[in-house]
């Protein structure tokens, strides 16, 4: 059997983490292929509904990353995002959606190494947790069970 390759989607802000990930590239620091980035203007833009959608579409893990507190390109988008994450995380936890599958981080434009580390450690965490079969069962309900 081939090793489980987690599908991980990363929601990152344009100014810090996207640039940080660019720096990872420019510095030629290697990381796992499992993580793929979607660019947002700001973490403040990252709707919790998109995280929800990601699990619904089969993500095994999610990374959400942006500028460090006080460094937001738009002053306070990340502060708003942080509050939202706190609430969202609490709700997911209450619902039994494994919060270990969402890694939140602050990665600045200067932290190319940190980005690689976030990616690799998240991939390892998700690898250990295995495929998100509980959620897939819920999401793929129509595929498997005939009806109702």
């Amino acid at each position, binding site marked *: 059997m081939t090793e489980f390759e987690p599908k991980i989607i990363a929601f990152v802000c344009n100014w810090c983490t996207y640039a940080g990930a660019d720096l990872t590239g420019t510095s030629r620091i290697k990381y796992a292929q499992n993580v793929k980035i979607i660019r947002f203007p700001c973490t403040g833009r990252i709707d*919790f*509904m998109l995280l*929800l*959608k990601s699990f*619904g579409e089969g993500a095994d893990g999610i990374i959400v990353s942006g500028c460090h*507190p*006080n460094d937001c390109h738009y002053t*306070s988008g990340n*502060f*708003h995002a*942080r*509050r*939202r*994450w*706190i*609430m*969202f*995380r*609490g*709700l*997911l*936890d*209450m*619902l*039994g*959606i*494994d*919060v270990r599958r969402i*890694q*939140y*981080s*602050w990665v600045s434009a200067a932290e190319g190494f940190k980005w690689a580390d*976030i990616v690799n450690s998240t991939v390892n965490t998700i690898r250990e947790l295995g495929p998100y079969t*509980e*959620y897939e*069962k*819920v*999401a793929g*309900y*129509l595929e498997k069970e005939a009806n109702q």
Partner: protein
Amino acid sequence: MSELIKKAAALLESKSVQVVIGYGKGTGNRTRTIFATQVTECENLIFDSRCVQNLAVYLTKLEIKKLGKPAIVAPVPVLRSILQLAVENQITESDLVILGITSESELIDFESFAAIETFLTTHKIEIEEKYTKTIDAIKAMPVAERFAYWVKELESCFKCYACRGACPLCYCTRCTVDDNQPQWISVASHPLGNLEWHIMRAMHLAGRCTDCEACYNACPMGIPIHLLTKSMLQDVADNFGSYGPSLDKQNTLSSFKPDDKESFIR
């Protein structure tokens, strides 16, 4: 009770308001909302412990707005909702007359929303112990078991949206579940669609919910969805200090503190 009836009648009589929204007798032992537009109809107003429906929901409904300026019978949960609606710019003081009423059926006048806020400082939202215990018990389950618990609980949800209809804070013209550009969440009632709907509903109430339990009371399938919002109220308290509507403070999620604490962000 005669006090309430007298007061309501006087308001209609003087044409200060065009309708009184209050509780009346319903089917069997139930109560139902009545909309008194005539002085004589005020006779039907009642108030007792069965009157739990949150009447504030009608303040934003198109059909009720058409009736004219309302007076609303407002026990504590309704007062909380009124204040939150004020915070969210849905009502203004001149829009309505508030017939405040305590659980002992004492009438209280409120000249302003600020007066409601002052009153509510002595009537803070408290999550009953039976609920905190249930929430703690759920949170103590292993994560997979907890998930299974909720999938099972939500299984009977057929998305009638009674929870949405009964909630005074679900006043959107178009609910996001009905937005198909993009299709944010599954509209269908199946495990994923139900889960997504209830996550979205709870998140949209994050920091706004005033714990009136209207959603739970409305659910024809008896799903304990109020546990989600109650758990979030606890999260608000744990992370941001206080909860409950306030005219000065902004909503929990549209405000922040630079030193908001989190330990899960790397």
